[in-house]
């Protein structure tokens, strides 16, 4: 579904990624692992067009999406839940979710999606009319995920979704990710919660300093000595 | 006397003059600095003055036989070997640019005299430069303080505020006497810069002197976005005469506001400024009818030269806009300066000043009201006199003094409904 080949990218002359490649198949969960500052977020941002790669190719459903502006990604079915949430602070939670479905014109679909989401995160429903900026950190994270789902994406990109969530919520969220994956959603996930992630990921890549280091199925990586030692710290 | 002391001070002031000497210009032309508002709300008036000045420059530089005034028949200034006049322009944005622009015109452009469209405030700062470099400054800044400061090179060809205001009250007295107008109360309305404030002061004195009582004295902000409260106050006070000193924007706004509030003053006596502009007619149309303003010149003066100049201006210089008194005043300043230069036969400042003080002008060739160009020692022309115009049929028409009036003034003004 998504092929990233030989990607190089960076910020204003500071190169971060060097020749990074990964791909994800339709309906699968793909995990990107790597230590802090490895360039995971940078890679994801390149995918959604937030930064212009200096070289390399990004193919989505067979077509290059290199020069497509970010706001069109949602139309293509790619939705990203960014690191650090980026909610619309001065809008209510409900409006935030509503903005998530900005590109969907069908009111009924939106309503259905909303109900589903409220089911998963009942907490959000309680806070429906509160301004997003006054939510607790974890609540904000939930809203961010919920908002990402509201656009009914085909490919969901999650950048450290468990960040700042209470353990029970994290568990629920992972369950939920599995569930939506079963429903046919393709998922790319960046997580530090590596053990859990690798358990349900179909395929995973380990990157370091902007380069591929290792790749394999979740299980393979989970067993890999190197991963255990260097990354999981076990 | 006080004045003499001041003059002495000034004499030694000019002796320890700046190290920068001004080169006697050897070029063909005689350069005269003209300061005009080139931007902002007054720049339209500036343009008109510029056009009128160009007319006088053409009259002087070319031989213009049908206008029978000195310097018209010859080309250039005869006493300077036919050297022609050239205007160099400076922009008047505010009082401090008046200073630096005057300085620039004198020192960089070689202007031998400065004139233009000045407010009193701008005149004051420009005078700092002209006095310093010893260059004649002719301005129609009407604040009487200008001639009380002991400026050595300052001249005013037309009346100052005292004369104008005095005239306005004399007119009221006349109306009371001849028409039983029964004017007792006046209200003063003045904008809050130098121009308005000064006039308000003089008006206060005069009102007392001639026995009118002031029922309202309004100072308002000259960049006001609305003049509602001012107009409401006037309406409430309901004076017999509203005396106003305002710039054009405020005049328009006042008249419109009066109309919208259904307030019809019996008489509005303006003190030039906004009341003496051609824009008044285009902006207010028939609503301008009946407004009075003091003035020093009018197209209806019974002097053949006036009509001739007026026509020449209207046809060749202004795209069909009539000559307005204030425009003529400023351009006459230029003409008078040229006369003095010619009479002096040199561009030396002191020679020009001398010539100015002893200006010889044939009385039969006058094109202004009054007796001529006779400057007293403080630089004020004592041969000038003020008059009062009222707007009738889209024109300024002289209503006072009696000797030159074109028609009988209308008093009181009809209400808005009747108009």
């Amino acid at each position, binding site marked *: 579904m998504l092929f990233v080949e030989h990607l190089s990218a960076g*910020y204003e002359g500071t190169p971060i990624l060097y020749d990074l490649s990964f791909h994800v198949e339709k309906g699968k969960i793909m995990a990107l*692992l*790597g*230590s*802090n*500052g490895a360039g995971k*977020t940078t890679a994801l941002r390149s995918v959604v067009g937030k930064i212009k790669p200096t070289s390399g190719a990004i193919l989505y459903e067979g077509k290059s999406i290199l020069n497509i502006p970010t706001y069109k990604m949602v139309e293509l079915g790619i939705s990203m839940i960014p*690191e*650090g949430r980026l909610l619309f602070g001065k809008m209510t939670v409900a409006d935030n979710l509503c903005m998530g479905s900005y590109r969907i014109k069908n009111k009924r679909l939106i309503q259905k999606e909303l109900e589903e989401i409220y089911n998963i995160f009942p*907490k959000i429903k309680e806070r429906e009319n509160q301004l997003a900026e*006054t*939510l*607790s*950190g*974890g*609540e904000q*994270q*939930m809203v961010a995920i919920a908002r990402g789902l509201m656009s009914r994406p085909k490919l969901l990109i999650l950048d*450290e979704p468990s*960040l*700042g*969530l*209470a*353990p*029970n*919520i*994290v*568990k*629920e969220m992972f369950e939920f990710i599995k569930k939506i994956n079963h429903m046919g959603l393709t998922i790319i996930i960046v997580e*530090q919660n*590596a053990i859990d992630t690798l358990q349900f990921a179909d395929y995973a890549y380990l990157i370091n300093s902007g380069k591929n280091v290792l790749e394999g199925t979740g299980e393979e990586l989970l067993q890999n000595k190197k991963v255990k030692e*260097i*990354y*999981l*710290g*076990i | 006397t006080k004045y003499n002391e001041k003059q002495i001070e000034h004499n030694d002031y000019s002796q320890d003059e700046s190290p920068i000497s001004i080169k006697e210009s050897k070029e063909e032309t005689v350069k005269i600095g003209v300061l005009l508002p080139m931007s902002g709300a007054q720049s339209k008036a500036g343009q008109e003055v510029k056009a009128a000045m160009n007319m006088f420059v053409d009259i002087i530089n070319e031989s213009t036989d049908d206008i029978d005034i000195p310097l018209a028949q010859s080309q250039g200034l005869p006493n300077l070997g036919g050297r022609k006049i050239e205007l160099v322009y400076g922009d008047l944005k505010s009082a401090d640019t008046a200073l630096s622009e005057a300085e620039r015109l004198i020192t960089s452009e070689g202007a031998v005299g400065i004139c233009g469209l000045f407010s009193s405030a701008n005149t004051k700062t420009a005078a700092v430069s002209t006095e310093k470099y010893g260059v004649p400054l002719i301005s129609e800044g009407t604040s009487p303080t200008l001639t009380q400061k002991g400026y050595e090179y300052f001249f005013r060809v037309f009346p100052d505020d005292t004369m104008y205001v005095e005239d306005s009250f004399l007119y009221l007295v006349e109306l009371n006497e001849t028409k039983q107008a029964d004017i007792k109360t006046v209200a003063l309305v003045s904008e809050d810069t130098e121009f308005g404030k000064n006039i308000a002061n003089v008006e206060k004195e005069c009102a007392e002197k001639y026995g009118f009582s002031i029922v309202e004295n309004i100072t308002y902000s000259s960049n006001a976005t609305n003049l509602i409260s001012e107009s409401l106050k006037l309406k409430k006070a309901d004076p017999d005469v509203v005396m106003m000193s305002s710039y054009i924007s405020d005049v328009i706004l006042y008249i419109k506001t009066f109309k919208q509030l259904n307030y019809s003053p019996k008489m509005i006596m303006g003190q030039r400024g906004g009341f003496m502009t051609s824009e008044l007619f285009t902006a207010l149309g028939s609503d301008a009818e009946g407004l009075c303003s003091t003035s020093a010149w009018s197209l209806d003066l019974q002097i053949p030269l006036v009509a001739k100049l007026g026509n020449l201006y209207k046809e060749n210089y202004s795209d069909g806009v009539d000559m307005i008194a204030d425009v003529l005043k400023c351009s006459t300043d230029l003409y008078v300066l040229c006369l003095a230069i010619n009479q002096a036969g040199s561009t030396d400042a002191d020679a020009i000043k001398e010539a100015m003080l002893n200006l010889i002008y044939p009385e039969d060739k006058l094109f202004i009201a009054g007796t001529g160009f006779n400057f007293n020692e403080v630089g004020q022309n004592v041969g000038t006199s003020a008059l009062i115009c009222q707007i009738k049929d889209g024109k300024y028409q002289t209503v006072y003094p009696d000797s030159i009036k074109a028609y009988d003034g209308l008093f009181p003004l009809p209400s808005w409904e009747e108009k």
Partner: protein
Amino acid sequence: MKVILEMKHATKKFGGLIANEDITFSIIEGEIIGMVGPNGAGKTTLFNSISGTHSLTSGHVIFDGTDITKKKPYEICKLGIGRTFQIPQALNEMSVFENVLVASLNRHQSISAAKEHTKKVIAMCGLASFIFMNAGDLNVMQKKRLEIARALATEPKLLLLDETMAGLSGVERKEAINLIQRIRISGITILMIEHVMEVVMSVSDRVVVLSSGKLLAEGTPEEVTQNQQVIQAYLGGSVH
């Protein structure tokens, strides 16, 4: 055993919402206290009350013998409480070095002394390679590290850490735990909010659990993680 911080019946309301309700507990000098609780339980709110970002609706905060309930953030910092923000608040237009330098000036009058101190703190927090970087361009984790560095540079007696370990990988967590222990050794008391139980368990002497604004439990990490209520409200099933 000296009590360094004491919360007395702390209550904080936002309009109708009670974010903290009648919270009482104390911290002893030299301790590391972990604070956990579900999202929205009121942990950050409590931090804000302690550090003076907002003041309590009722109740008191006593620090080192002084009542700091109504004090301003800078006064509280001067008294010796350093804090980090859950959502990092770096001085974005300034470099990492300057960020820490500004904080160092809290206790150092001269610039050169402050610079020396800054270097030490930066090295300790592992930010040395970023010193010329514009703080706004750091990624989230790096910003969190900068938060710690800035709080440390003010040379506090009590350090409040709000989820500074979130998003660290295993090795990095070890390093961070290491850092915390080093901080403790230097004599600083630590109160840390953390959702990563692994960290909480391994470093804290005691754990405070908040839930729905109230103090739910308090005790050693073991005690707390066995607590049925805590498991239900926060941990969800088994602990790992």
